[in-house]
């Protein structure tokens, strides 16, 4: 990592830390969804199970979803979107840094600022709700490793969503569409195992599934070690593929920038 990347990441980290209320809200957003999810699934599951998830497993599943969504939403997507919408992107084009790489560094800085509160929130949820334990110590390590890929994946998905600001006037609607796509196809709204076969196939063909279903499947032992390593490899492939896709789209969409004045 070059010093310029570190500088961008540090600036965003400090900015996030400075706005303590925003920091708190990021955790609260996920906390409310977690509580609502727990209330709903406690009623639906009772003493039985659905899609192979009993109540203890579902609690673990929802807490992993809380952790990943808290991290995924904590980056600087609005800052990126506003730079495109208000035209500041034209100034960025004059800087001797790669736009995508600089935004990635900023995004990582923003996510890093949320890591402590996400971990505290997750630890509190584990203590309060007593979910199922990881199926083995190795599964716990592999789960943690798979969670690391949330960082590049979240950036890439958010960056691709932000690029739509070149053809739209507002980011709000795009943001909600992105959130919903991620919530549904990650399995956070409803486990992928409950979906019909064709929808499961579609979900596993998209990158969103790695935000909840992949780490939860490794944690709960729904896949063996080879399967877990395979899923982690797919995460890595997605991270690279989305980075390249974003670069291609950026090079096309940036031509829409019109600089007025003179």
């Amino acid at each position, binding site marked *: 990592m070059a010093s310029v990347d570190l500088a961008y990441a540090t600036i965003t980290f400090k900015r996030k830390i400075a*706005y303590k209320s925003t920091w708190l809200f990021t955790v609260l957003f996920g906390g409310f969804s977690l509580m609502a999810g727990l209330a709903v699934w406690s009623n639906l599951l009772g003493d039985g199970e659905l899609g192979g998830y009993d109540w203890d497993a579902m609690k673990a599943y929802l807490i992993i979803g809380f952790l990943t969504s808290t991290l995924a939403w904590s980056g600087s997507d609005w800052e990126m979107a506003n730079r495109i919408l208000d035209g500041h992107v034209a100034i960025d084009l004059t800087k001797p840094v790669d736009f995508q790489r600089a935004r990635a560094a900023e995004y990582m800085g923003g996510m890093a600022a949320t890591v402590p509160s996400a971990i505290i929130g997750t630890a509190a949820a584990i203590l309060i709700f007593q979910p199922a334990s990881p199926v083995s110590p190795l599964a716990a390590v592999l789960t943690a490793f798979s969670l690391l890929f949330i960082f590049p994946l979240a950036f890439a998905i958010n960056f691709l969503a932000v690029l739509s600001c070149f053809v739209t006037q507002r980011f*709000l609607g795009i943001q909600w569409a992105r959130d*919903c796509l991620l919530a549904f196809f990650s399995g956070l709204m409803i486990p992928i195992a409950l979906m019909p076969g064709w929808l499961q196939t579609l979900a596993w063909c998209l990158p969103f599934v790695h935000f909840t279903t992949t780490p939860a499947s490794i944690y709960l032992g729904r896949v063996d070690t080879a399967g877990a390593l395979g899923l982690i490899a797919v995460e890595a492939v997605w991270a690279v593929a989305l980075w390249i896709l974003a670069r291609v789209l950026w090079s096309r969409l940036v031509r829409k920038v019109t600089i007025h004045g003179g």
Partner: protein
Amino acid sequence: MRHVGGVYRRALVAQIRSITEYPADFWVMASAGVMWNLLQFAFLTVLFNAVPDVAGWDYHEMVLLSSLLAIAGGSTALFCDGVWSTGQMVLKGEIDYRITRPAPVVVQMATTHIGMQGFGEVGFGLVMFVYGWIGAGLGLAAVPVGVLALVCTAVIECALVTLFCSVNFWLKGPMSNFAFMFIDLQNSAMSMPLGLFPIGVKLVTLFVVPVAFVNFVPIAVLTGHMSGWWLIGTPVAAVLAVFAATVVYRFGLRSYDSAGN
């Protein structure tokens, strides 16, 4: 009042005119609005393949619940999307200009934008509403209640979003965090029957922030889960929410001190 209505209508029409200049923007945003409601619909369909009911509510009743939530969200995008910029404008001192014009600031702010995803949300929300209505076996006799529910849904939601965005007059920041949290909480809890949640959630959503009247109460009355008397609360909540939003926004403007140098 007529003047205010006229200003609001003309500002909104001007925004709609500007939309026609950006057809790509319109279609992208409207599709985004349809998509996330389509996913909510898919969620319910998948869920009800696995369970027969949720806290006594069947599939079509739940579709009705989600449809009003979609229409509520779309209504704020169409009728008062600009209030989301309150925080940003307070920070930059951009409300100065609006204070000098002969029309209420909140009306000018509300019409600064139109969220084009609202067209998709309201459109697909109405499709879900009709689908749920027919599936739940509701007849023509209940149509007046349905129309009242649709109108009050839009009014309450717009008022509550305005109210929560006005918090940024005091808690300065570019993001409308309170409004975001309100929407997040509403989407998490109110797409499900209120019976699933603890008594505290029921009391807050019925009597403190009357978000239950946006979708839950009208649908619960229509489908017989609640007594018809509760329906009176829906227009009452709408009037109170509008009153609260107007008063709080006005107080917010009093504490507005423009941008410093």
